[in-house]
């Protein structure tokens, strides 16, 4: 390991230097304000699932970052360093140790933040610390890989454009078959549309049912919408790896395409971090004023029902359901009531889990944890409290408005053998659609067209 003249590794020195550039007023407030009251301790799912291990306590984890601030940037650390526990990083091993804390022991879920009487926002400076480490190449392999895919290919799963287009065409054929309408379309790059609909690459790469379900809803609502051929990935690993440059580049691609297509509104499919990144954080990262509206597809679907554009029949979704709030949707963006209102319109038996809304526990796969395979055993052990919470609802299906939560919950449900299913609102709304009349109408039109063609 090469070192600087003061004996510190180059990487460690860079982390310290760069921290100085990242200390916003909000960050300093959080780094300075902790009084170690311990109220955050019981709010963290890692602590609740590992009660004997104090290294999971948010204040402990925060202090691993805070000590650097105290030592290098705060006057208290210069006057009485021992009292304020000022400390530093000296070697690359120190940085690896820090990596295991900021990536492996925190999902940036912000539950401790809302339970802190001093308003300390651990998730914000934990993200900052992740960014400092990524900048010197220290990060979990999965995070590095996904960030690279987003930089180079433009989406986090490395989906090629031809696969994206072919998948849309495939789902369009499925839509035509289901609706018995050969003219049903999933438009791509249609200019001047009311809605530009962006999705998670997982929907293309692994499971396109949600693309078809959304298409059915748009079709039944008679929506003027399009899917973009570029800038269609609304997920953003910049939120997870703390790299504002990546965050800005990914969100910027989405915004640029909406502008190019002259879309009126950006509708973001159900993904917590994607929603937060694209709607809330992205404009700052991309340093861009956004001239168009944006909303979650949850809001769009709810409006369609309320405005009578689509009709739903909740008896088509039998069984019992609970709702899991995504951290990014609920705690960071306040999207808590609309999903419940929508769910209540499409299922009969909806039971709250407790705690819920902004107090809900993380799916335990947040903050990019699902890409960090090395921490999976610890993640699943720390999911015990979530498993108990799900189990206590006595329901068969957990509904969530987040693709990442779908994967996190599915993993822990399998691990703890809960026997529950996981689904999203788009699936339930599509399944509840009243379509028989429309299909009958399409059948008549199609048969009249066929007869007219035959007569010619």
């Amino acid at each position, binding site marked *: 390991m090469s070192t600087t003249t003061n004996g510190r590794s180059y990487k460690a020195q860079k982390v310290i230097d760069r921290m100085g550039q990242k200390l916003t007023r909000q960050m300093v407030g959080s780094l300075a304000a902790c009084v170690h009251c311990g109220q955050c301790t019981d709010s963290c799912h890692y602590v609740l699932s590992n009660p004997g291990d104090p290294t999971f306590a948010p204040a402990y984890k925060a202090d691993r970052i805070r000590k650097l601030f105290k030592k290098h940037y705060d006057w208290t650390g210069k006057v009485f360093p021992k009292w304020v526990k000022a400390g530093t990083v000296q070697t690359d091993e120190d940085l690896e140790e820090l990596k295991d804390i900021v990536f492996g022991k925190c999902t940036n879920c912000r539950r401790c933040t809302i339970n802190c009487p001093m308003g300390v926002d651990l998730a914000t400076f934990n993200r900052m610390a992740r960014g400092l480490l990524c900048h010197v190449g220290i990060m979990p392999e999965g995070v590095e890989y996904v960030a690279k895919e987003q930089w180079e290919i433009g989406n986090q799963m490395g989906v090629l454009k031809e696969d994206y287009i072919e998948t849309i065409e495939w789902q369009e054929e499925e839509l035509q078959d289901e609706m018995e309408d050969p003219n049903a379309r999933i438009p791509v790059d249609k200019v001047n549309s009311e809605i530009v609909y962006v999705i998670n690459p997982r929907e293309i790469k692994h499971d396109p049912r949600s693309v078809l379900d959304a298409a059915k809803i748009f079709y039944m609502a008679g929506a003027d919408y399009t899917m973009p051929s570029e800038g269609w990935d609304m997920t953003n690993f910049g939120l997870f790896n703390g790299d504002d440059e990546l965050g800005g580049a990914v969100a910027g691609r989405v915004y640029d395409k909406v502008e190019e297509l002259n879309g009126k509104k950006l509708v973001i499919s159900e993904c917590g971090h994607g929603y937060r990144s694209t709607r809330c954080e992205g404009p700052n990262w991309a340093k861009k004023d956004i001239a168009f509206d944006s909303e979650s597809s949850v809001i769009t679907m709810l409006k369609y029902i309320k405005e009578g554009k689509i009709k739903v029949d909740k008896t088509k979704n039998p069984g019992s359901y609970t709702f899991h709030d995504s951290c990014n949707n609920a705690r960071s963006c306040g999207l808590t009531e609309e999903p419940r209102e929508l769910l209540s319109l499409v299922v009969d038996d909806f039971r709250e889990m407790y705690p819920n809304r902004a107090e809900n526990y993380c799916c335990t796969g947040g903050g*990019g944890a699902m890409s960090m395979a090395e921490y999976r055993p610890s993640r699943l052990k720390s999911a015990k409290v979530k498993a108990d919470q799900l189990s206590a609802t006595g329901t068969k299906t957990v509904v969530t408005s987040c693709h990442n939560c779908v994967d996190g919950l599915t993993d822990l449900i399998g691990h703890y053998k809960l026997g529950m299913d996981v689904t999203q609102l788009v699936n339930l709304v599509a399944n509840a659609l009243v379509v028989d009349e429309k299909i009958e109408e399409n059948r008549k039109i199609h048969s009249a067209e066929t007869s007219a063609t035959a007569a010619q």
Partner: protein
Amino acid sequence: MEKHKQENFHCEDFLSDFDFWTVDVADKLARDSDISGGLTESHWKVIMYVRDHFMKYEKGPAVVKVVKDCGISFKELCDLFPCGLVRGAYKVAGLPRPQGCI
């Protein structure tokens, strides 16, 4: 069995070494992936397609490729591999755990 020793399996029970894969290993992976009743001809068609794709591109195929090139519907794919494309078909085909959020 010697060839099923734990060190040959990477995290999340994906195979760590693509070349270690055998028909016998596939059977074990299938049992771990909720496939009851053994691997059928339809399973093998998907498995071999996924392996060929990985050998060519070092990545698992997108679902559209599997469905179109194997001539099956998405529902049939889900029925064959209840754990889905990645935790089902990729895993049984001996692919290493894909990077990223799965």
